[in-house]
């Protein structure tokens, strides 16, 4: 089992260590290979942010001050997938209850209830919801998005004590799997900081467990 997988099953969390991620794409390949997903369906994606480099549009379009000042701020790669949040916004905004926070902590999609309204896409801050059928037939005509698909946390694998395929495949153990305390301890041991702000941490872990990470930061 990967070093990043500390415990599996009920109560698990998935969380990225951005300082370990090298954007190798191994997790993407592992997910596709394990679940035989079609080419346009990426349940996990890696977003790389080059700090100080102007974005193509929006707020980051002209923020190149640090590079112009001769600094070399580096880059951050973030595995974007479903973190099976404690206070999952997708579950809150789903009007048809197609997204449900299960008792064991997994956020599951009930495909027969999904109408393809894409509210979850707007609600999720982590880019987890995917709509692989949005270009098909009536979904394309009416723009409904088709049935939503996202990371399942490899629930079936976890039920037999295996880690999620992405975490097991990750060469740098950048995808951490375990309880909130285990993840907080692991990050502390590595000297890594959680990538997200306090609000996002409360979304992912809940207000109580998010304090585990805040305490670590304050101590350092």
């Amino acid at each position, binding site marked *: 089992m990967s070093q990043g997988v500390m415990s599996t099953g009920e109560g698990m969390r998935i969380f990225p260590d951005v300082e370990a991620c090298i954007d190798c794409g191994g997790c993407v390949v592992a997910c596709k290979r394990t679940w035989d997903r079609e080419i346009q369906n990426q349940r996990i994606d890696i977003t790389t942010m080059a700090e100080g480099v102007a974005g193509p549009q929006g707020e980051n379009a002209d923020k190149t001050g640090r590079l112009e000042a001769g600094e070399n701020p580096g880059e951050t790669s973030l595995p974007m997938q479903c973190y099976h949040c404690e206070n999952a916004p997708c579950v*809150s905004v789903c*009007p*048809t*209850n197609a997204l449900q926070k299960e008792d064991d902590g997994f956020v599951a999609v009930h495909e027969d209830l999904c109408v393809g309204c894409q509210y979850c896409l707007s609600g999720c801050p982590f880019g987890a919801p995917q709509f692989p059928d949005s270009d098909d037939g009536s979904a394309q005509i009416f723009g409904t998005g088709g049935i939503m698909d996202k990371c399942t946390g490899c629930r079936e694998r976890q039920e037999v004590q295996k880690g999620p395929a992405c975490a097991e495949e990750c060469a740098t153990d950048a995808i951490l799997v375990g309880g909130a305390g285990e993840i907080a301890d692991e990050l502390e041991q590595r000297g890594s900081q959680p990538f997200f702000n306090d609000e996002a941490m409360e979304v992912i872990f809940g207000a109580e467990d998010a304090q585990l990470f805040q305490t670590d930061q304050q101590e350092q």
Partner: protein
Amino acid sequence: MTNLDHGKFSRATTMFHSLLALTVFVLFFTGYAIAFNTELWWLVELMGGNEGVLSIHRAAGFSLIALTGFWVPYMLLRSSSRSNFRSVLPSPDDARAFLQDVKFALGWADERHPSARQFAGFKADEVPLLSYVGKGVIWIFTVELILLMISGLLIWRKTWLIDFYNSQSVAMAFVAFHGLLGIIMLMGVMFHTFEHGFHPAFYPVEMKAFLPKDMTPNFHGDPDEYETTGIERLRRKPSWRWATNVVAVLVVVGVVSVMMASLEYGGYPVPDTLAFGEGSVLRTIGINAGIFVLLLGLVLSMYGNVLRARYVSRRDQRATGAATDGGEPSETKRSSSEPRSDGGEVSGANRSTSDPRSDGGEVSETNRSAADHGSTDPNDD
């Protein structure tokens, strides 16, 4: 002659009104089934489940846009339509009528403004056909529909919106706005259905909305016979009282429940957070009451068109009868088979005691006393 005898809409407007109602009702049924999936699970099942509900909603949305896209140029390009358009523009007199009615409601004025008293003993040429209330309904619905169409289009493909604004929050904001406007319009449509379907003079449907004014007889007989407004001839159907009470309760429960249930979210009227599907007894009652009133409105809309078809059919039959006689039907014959606007007939013997109503309703003698006792303004009823 009263305003009750006046035609209201042109032929095209009656068609537009019915089609508009149909698309708006479909949009409401599908939109609410999605937004209030927990409370309206039965409606979702009736419409064939979740699959396709959003497609129907969006197809109806585009139908509404197409309908409006035809209607607006039609209204602006035709000279006769332009005059109709001018007649719905607000005037200073409307503001005065509104203020006087507010004063009247507060007990600071002795009577309502004449412009708001179409049914209170005034003849048609003495008061405007369209009061500030009617104009208000038209403009409120117009603004709401435009905003719903724009916000609906914007959230149609959320990926485009998110890409354009480089923000997910914008998509959520428009979704919240669209839903909030839908709630407000639901309350308006409930009131509109109640106002026009359960008016004592029109119950169960106001035929003026379905029968073009060029087909509506201004007088039901000899106009010289009517030296008064004729309001005293109107009597209510026996079922009017209990039907009105039932629907009034549903409308009030629907409106109040929806507004009160919105408080649960916090930050009323704009919720702090967008959260669907959590379930609420109050919201379940309110939404279901609202949907029932909408359903009733749809049925009444269809019933109005059935009455119109029956009326036209009877009128055609009468015209054919005259031709086969080889001449004009006699006055006796005409008076004994005067068509009612719902297609029914009123016998000559009955005419003195049961004047035909535009919806074909006939009412009991007991209700006449309401008019005799000075309660001639049904709005005051």
